[in-house]
């Protein structure tokens, strides 16, 4: 069995997982919003890509941008009309977002019909190194996800906006006193997180078909990755994704595809139990 290949594939799996989880690292990790509609944001991104790329025949990168814009708008609407009034009430947030997820699924079903849709992979061909084969598509996804990670990190830690975001998440009332328009920051932060998630949707759409219910699995995996890595830390999310991604590949030796997933779930549950703060702990008092 070609272990090297498995590890490489693991990297690509991790990278798409990282991509999907990145948005959640912001909405859940930083804003502490339990967004059960995270998967549906991915789905919206995927459908936007389908509409722009497959139907309207525009180039793929345009579709990616469109996916960002559309989901960012959806996110903004969610924040403005629902989440805003629920801050500090995680359980209510969780319920509301579940309601939203049902609605989004149905809306998409009405707009695009029930049948599954396809987004054509923008890149074909494979790279062969010795006995390892990597599709250029997956190579692209790896690079892209790393870029997205860096971009997000840059925005959060090197820009005024990012600084504001972190200030607000640290101490809301204080920020209010400092004259920061917190509600505006919340709006922007959430729709930014949503937008990234939409981009992730555009990317994963190239690996699979596009369907109204495609989001659920991604939603769960993203939460696992974020929590495993350490809530509120981008590095943590990256690490979480890599662990889960690699595990899901390498553990197939042990229990096959299904066994691998079961083992991962058990592992993550145990980690949450003993380190709720995740593998990467933010030092704070």
């Amino acid at each position: 069995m070609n272990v090297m290949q498995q590890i490489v594939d693991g990297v690509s799996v991790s990278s798409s997982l990282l991509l999907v989880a990145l948005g959640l690292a912001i909405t859940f990790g930083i804003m502490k919003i339990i967004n059960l509609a995270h998967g549906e944001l991915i789905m919206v991104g995927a459908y936007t890509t389908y509409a722009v790329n497959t139907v309207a025949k525009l180039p793929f990168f345009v579709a990616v941008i469109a996916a960002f814009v559309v989901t960012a708008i959806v996110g903004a609407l969610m924040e403005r009309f629902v989440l805003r009034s629920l801050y500090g009430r995680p359980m209510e947030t969780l319920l509301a977002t579940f309601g939203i997820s049902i609605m989004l699924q149905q809306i998409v079903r009405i707009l695009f019909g029930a049948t599954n849709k396809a987004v054509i992979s923008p890149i074909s061909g494979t790279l062969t190194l010795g006995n390892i084969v990597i599709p250029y598509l997956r190579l692209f996804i790896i690079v892209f996800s790393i870029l997205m990670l860096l971009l997000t990190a840059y925005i959060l830690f090197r820009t005024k906006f990012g600084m504001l975001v972190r200030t607000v998440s640290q101490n809301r009332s204080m920020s209010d006193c400092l004259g920061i328009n917190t509600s505006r920051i919340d709006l922007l932060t959430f729709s930014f997180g949503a937008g990234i998630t939409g981009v992730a949707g555009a990317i994963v759409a190239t690996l699979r078909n596009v369907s109204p219910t495609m989001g659920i699995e991604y939603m769960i995996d993203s939460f696992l990755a974020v929590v495993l890595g350490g809530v509120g830390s981008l590095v943590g999310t990256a690490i979480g994704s890599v662990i889960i991604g690699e595990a899901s590949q390498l553990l197939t030796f042990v229990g096959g595809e299904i066994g691998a997933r079961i083992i991962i779930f058990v592992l993550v549950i145990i980690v949450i139990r003993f380190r709720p703060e995740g593998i990467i702990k933010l030092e704070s008092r």
Partner: protein
Amino acid sequence: MKQLWKNHTVSLLLLLYLALTPMFSNAFGVELTGKFIVLMIFAIALDLVWGYAGLLSLGHAVFFGLGGYMLALSYSLQKGVPSFMARFQITEIPLFMKPLTSIPMAFVLGLVLPSVIAFVIGYFIFKSKVSGVYFSLITLALAKLFEMIAINNQAYTGGFNGLMGLPRFPIGGKPMELDSYYYLVLAIAVVVYLFAHWLMNSRFGKIVKSIRENEPRIAFLGYNVAHYKIFVFVISGFISGLAGMLYVPMNGFFSPNEIGLALSTMIVVYVAIGGRGTIIGPAIGAFLINLLQNELSEQYPAFWQLLLGLIIVLVVLFFPKGIYGTLQEKLGAWLAQFRLRREGK
């Protein structure tokens, strides 16, 4: 008597309606309502954990499912090795499933196993610093996990297809009439309701509530919070398992859907919409949503999904206490004013 009426108006009205159903509705209607009642019991079970102790479990179907599977499996084992086993060259019932060949034993297991699992999970989680949303996330993962396990071990669980063709109501040997089974379920529902009511108005219930209200404080009053959480979780698991078992004959069929995410989240919705922390509220939520779904999903399938989502969002935004909770509040306030005016004169 008057007191009883005053405190339980809604519950009594609902009970009256349910008790009369078999008289004015056909077999289909009765079975449907029976199914609703089972879900009401399940909703009450979740309410104990979420509504009172403030622990939002997103994986409660695990207990419902365990209970159901015990009975469903037992039924399928009655005629020797079932086809779903035979298909995997299993020629005789494996040792660890032997106990299930006896239906009474299955009943016992259907109550014990969920409780035990609930205890293990509870002990595992509540003896740690895990709390709030992390508890919810763990239970979410658990629901997914059990779903996968049920699907994965198809040689023993019937896998993705589930267990079907289950005899209808063979409670104790020979089949039971639909109506009599319906009333049995209803009776159990009443008992569960009364039990939950007693439990949550006992000192225990008050302590559980104060855990929800202010966990650190109750510890400073000398209570071992973990024990209380575990206990209420186990009770809830037990009732969920019971509901799961009652569901099997009503449905004639049991599948991984009943142990996984889908049901777990739906039951949370029932409780939230009905009004958590009120015992009867969640039951009403379960009843109304299912009634609506059954009426609307056929005429407007697409529309129904939208409406359900919308209802959830609106309730969360405008009736955080749920339908019953809000009614209770408004009525209470109104009555108070009314009395004041009376006294004023």
